[in-house]
């Protein structure tokens, strides 16, 4: 049994760890610190934790003001309120002046679960990657989330880090693992089809690999943790070597990883790209696992898409 840890847990713990080492790090939250896990940082560095109350727009622009004075602000709330409600503050006060603010948004995707569609951000990757100067990162597990948080703290400029509520399998806990911003991670070698996934769907992609392998289909599995800037070389190589691509993300099929991959493929080596994700619909209340099934965010759905893709290629 693999251990399950939510990426938000790794975020809170890592933030506390690097916060102790770097006095410039300040953390802002909008009354959700227990859920976003910034409360862990608060416990270690209370003087540098700033609760902004339920006012996300103000929080983002206050973070921008802090950044102009040399601080490294991490601003956290749920993804729907960060990328959604505070979109324009992030665009105009953080990204346009290229300020060193890290927007770390938790509770992304439909695995928010019981709180329902109002709280399930399925558009945030799309919104954030359309903003110039913005780096967009969606870690696949706790190991990667921790590495990503350290990387964005080192990087000078605006970043959006997408984190989840649900505990997810730890898949990167090995000696060779290395996080490089903007660099895809090839997890499985194969030349018949490429499965390109991000976030918690990387684990589903690995499961799909096993199912396909049993049927004699060798899939390449690529983890795209950095959706912007995206690793164009890895995607173009996958298109050239495999001839068909399936993308998988816990996000709308409009504007997210699938769209980003398709954009690269059409302008480098055009091949069929099939997108697994939320099919332009709102979510609903329910248990996260049941919602993943209902909205087609499973290994089986990836396998189905692979088979459809292989048919298309013929």
């Amino acid at each position, binding site marked *: 049994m693999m251990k399950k840890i939510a990426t938000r847990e790794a975020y809170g713990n890592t933030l506390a760890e690097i916060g102790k080492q770097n006095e410039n790090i300040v953390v802002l939250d909008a009354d959700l610190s227990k859920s976003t896990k910034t409360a862990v940082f608060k416990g270690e560095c209370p003087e540098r934790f700033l609760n902004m109350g339920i006012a996300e727009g103000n929080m983002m622009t206050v973070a921008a*003001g802090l950044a102009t004075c040399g601080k490294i602000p991490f601003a956290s709330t749920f993804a729907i309120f960060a990328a959604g409600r505070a979109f324009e*503050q992030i665009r105009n006060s953080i990204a346009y002046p290229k300020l060193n603010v890290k927007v770390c948004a938790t509770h992304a995707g439909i695995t928010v679960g019981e709180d329902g569609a109002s709280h399930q951000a399925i558009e945030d990757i799309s919104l954030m990657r359309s903003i110039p100067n913005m780096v967009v990162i969606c870690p696949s597990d706790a190991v990667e989330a921790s590495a990503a948080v350290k990387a964005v703290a080192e990087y000078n400029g605006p970043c959006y880090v997408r984190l989840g509520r649900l505990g997810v399998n730890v898949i990167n806990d090995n000696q060779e693992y290395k996080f490089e911003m903007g660099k895809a991670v090839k997890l499985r070698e194969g030349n018949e089809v490429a499965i390109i996934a991000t976030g918690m769907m990387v684990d589903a992609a690995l499961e799909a690999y096993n199912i396909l392998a049993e049927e004699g289909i060798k899939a390449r599995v690529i983890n795209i943790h950095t959706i912007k800037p995206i690793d164009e070389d890895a995607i173009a190589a996958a298109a050239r070597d495999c001839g068909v691509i399936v993308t998988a993300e816990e996000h709308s099929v409009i504007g997210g990883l699938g769209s980003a991959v398709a954009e690269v493929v059409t302008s480098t080596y055009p091949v069929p790209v099939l997108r697994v994700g939320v099919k332009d619909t709102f979510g609903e209340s329910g248990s996260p696992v049941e919602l993943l099934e209902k909205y087609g965010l499973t290994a089986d759905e990836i396998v189905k898409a692979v088979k459809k893709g292989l048919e298309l290629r013929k």
Partner: protein
Amino acid sequence: MKKTCEELREVAKILRKDIVKMLTESKSGHPGGSLSAVEIMTTLYFDEMNINPENCSNPDRDRFVLSKGHAAPVLYAALAERGFFAKEELMKLRKTGAILQGHPNMNYIPGVDMSTGSLGQGISAAVGMALAGKLDNKEYRVYTLLGDGELGEGQVWEATMCASHYKLNNLTAFVDFNGLQIDGDITKVMNSLPIDEKFEAFGWNVICIDGHDIEAIKNAINEAKNVKDKPTVVVCKTIKGKGVSFMENQAGWHGAAPSKEQCEQALAEIGGDK
């Protein structure tokens, strides 16, 4: 760089004329709300603020955020006159490739502390700067200028609540209370009155003055420095388009540029040595 009120009034004339000239040249921009804020900006940039054009990024400098970013011409006129960049740049306002954008950009323009333009956000950025000053035990002060129409943005009140919650006595906000916004009288478009009582209810120290009275502005700034645990707002009653007869109290001059002839008339009315 302390100056007498008499000297500051002369500087104000220069800024007014530069505003009119640059807007005539750019054929677009916002004269009304730039002219109404001239005395506030003159007092801050030529009497009060600890700034140095030779060292724009000094961490100990005072900060200014133009929350009503569309009044960029008055900020640009002040910065150019103060020596942050060449005056010739003013004549390239809003032109492709120029540093002087329609709304302030901190990365292109020396002396601009924050990019603004989307109303309601500048005051939040100023709150962030004031918080950073508190965290670092710095002595610098943070100033911001809001429009009265801008008070319609909910974010202004989020920021206002936040500033008093964190007892930011190093923050002073000015409200350019000229009574007009694009669509007309502020009490008709969306009534934000009473401004003073709102800020008071949000925990601020409130000073109400004539925003064209330089001595009153100086006194308000000094009073704010002595307030122990509150931010201060200076509600400045002003005249939109102040100093140019045909622009005064005309909402139509919120975002329209003068013609060459109107420019000549305006310059003659403003007067002054230079």
